[in-house]
């Protein structure tokens, strides 16, 4: 019962961006996917979500492969994109109802949870509004609420902290912590390690389309030879130099 990415090679229109990528996430584990811009983080996520077709390798989530039963596979995943993607024609309330319909949730049982999430992100008085008219931060909150509504086995979160106010960041971290306690898996890409390390214990460093190393922040420090006094940002300098030398 886990997410297994095995020997994944993929990218766009026959041009591989990620090469022979291997990653496993166990239930109750949150993994941070880190790397420079263009390292292949978003491409990896797109493969997991089924938006790109692997050129080699496979992705297995709880013994199910995307290609065999896409709808059942997607039923196990919730996604928060880096930039909010909303339905222009739906109100906030209808976004929640749409999520209930798509994930087959019973409205009567799900609304208490929805109200709790709406209150948490101070959206409870905007149910009848069209979220396309919200600010970017508010729209991101809508994405968070809809993603945490179904209790999916895997949560894929792409750069979650961009545009959120500190209160929303704290609430998001709380939800991720809760999801881990419930035995769910979390894959998160981020550059904001100070926030991420509150919930993420294991990291995978992606560079030039491959995972260079995995482990805790201490393991990564050792792997890249960082001194205790060094800022973790130095890791990005090292990755950049590696790219230049490649």
């Amino acid at each position: 019962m886990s997410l297994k990415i095995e020997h994944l090679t993929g990218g766009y229109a026959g041009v591989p961006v990620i090469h022979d990528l291997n990653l496993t996430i166990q239930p109750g584990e949150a993994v941070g996917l880190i790397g420079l811009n263009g390292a292949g983080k978003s491409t990896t996520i797109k493969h997991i979500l089924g938006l790109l077709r692997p050129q080699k390798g496979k992705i297995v989530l709880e013994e199910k492969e995307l290609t065999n039963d896409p709808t059942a596979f997607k039923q196990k995943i919730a996604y928060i994109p880096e930039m909010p993607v909303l339905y222009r024609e739906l109100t906030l309330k209808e976004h929640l109802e749409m999520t209930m319909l798509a994930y087959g949730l019973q409205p009567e049982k799900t609304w208490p949870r929805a109200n709790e999430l709406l209150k948490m992100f101070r959206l409870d008085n905007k149910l009848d509004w069209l979220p396309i008219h919200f600010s970017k931060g508010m729209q991101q909150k809508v994405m968070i609420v809809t993603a945490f509504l179904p209790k999916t086995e895997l949560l894929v979160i792409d750069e979650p902290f961009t545009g959120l106010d500190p209160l929303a960041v704290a609430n998001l971290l709380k939800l991720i912590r809760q999801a881990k306690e419930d035995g769910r898996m979390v894959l998160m890409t981020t550059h904001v390690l100070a926030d991420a390390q509150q919930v993420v214990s294991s990291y995978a460093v992606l560079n030039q389309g491959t995972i260079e190393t995995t482990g805790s922040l201490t393991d990564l420090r050792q792997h890249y030879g960082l001194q205790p006094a060094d800022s973790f940002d130095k890791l990005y300098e090292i990755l950049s130099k590696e790219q230049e030398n490649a």
Partner: protein
Amino acid sequence: MHELAIRRLRANVKQSLHYLSLIFNDFFVLALIFLFGALMFWYAKALKTMPVGQNFYRPVLGLLLWLPFLVGHLVTLLEPADEQFLLTQDQHVRSYLTPLLAYSMVLPTIMLVGMGAILAPFALLKVKLSLANYLGLVASLWVLKIFQLSLQNKHLYFGWHFSLWGYNLLTLGVAVLLTYNYSLGLCYFAVVLALGSSGSQRVFNWAEAIKTENKRKQGVYAFYSLFTDVDERQVVIKRRKWLDFLLPKRLGWETPQTFLYRRTLLRNPEYLNLLVRMTAFAWLISWLVQDYRWALGLSALVVLLTLYQLQGLEHVFDYHLMYRVMPIDPAWQRRSLIRVLSLALELQTLLIIVGWAIVLPKQTMLWLYMIFLLAITIFLVRIYLPLSLGSKHETKK
């Protein structure tokens, strides 16, 4: 900046010609020639029977000549990125806008000359204006249009306010006064001209200018989109809560696709306007033919055309990221579209029938033809639509 304006102008002309060539295709031009010919034939006949020198001729002439004055706004071709990249170029905006001001006068000039030529026989023969007076009237409106565009230009700077409608109404005064008293009209023209040339400007309001240009462009695209698909058109979704009574109250009756299609149909103006336009068109042609057999045939055609155009709704979310990420079974897509379109077109048919009851002569057979139309719609949405969608999917495979 001047070169940038010329480059953008060329691209804009190319784009306009592309859409105009799509709109004014052979059939449309032929139809326009017939319509224009019919109008001119009626006008020539009317001129022969019209009495000379009626009191209301002068204000009507002024009003008709004023209408083309309203056509055309200042074209700036500014883009949203300009607020970032050209922010420091305030002092060069004038040289940027010079060729665009000239370009902005092309459409109003064509319209004014066209209307002036059409109205000349009426003005000279029936209103009994002298040729010099009439030419002076048309020329004054043309000059005032230049000043109107110049005012629109000034309005794009901070600290300068201008009411477009106020200026247009002043111009209407000039147009009417010039038909009565030429000297007084010219004095009034000079005053309006002076108003138009007042004021100086310094700091360019980029945000306002970009917003204004986007609004103008969207207006042009909205016109093009009446005839053809326009990729550049930005659709503004409106909540339209008052239409919510058309949505099912229970979520249990919905699939994700019916849920989305229904709301798209009610809130996306592209689809709602199509439904409204086609229904109004059915009413109009039914009223024109005043015969229930013709009304039946033509209204059935309108329903078929509406159905044909609404079929595009099926794939409207195919490239929506969350639609693809969410566990939505694509197998429901076709059935959901049929459900939603059935309801929409049956509702449209009911509205057409209500229209018939108002505009067609009351005869006992009318009821029978109403039932025929409803039967045709039911056939179209329950039998033709599933077959049509099925064959499309087969072709794709």
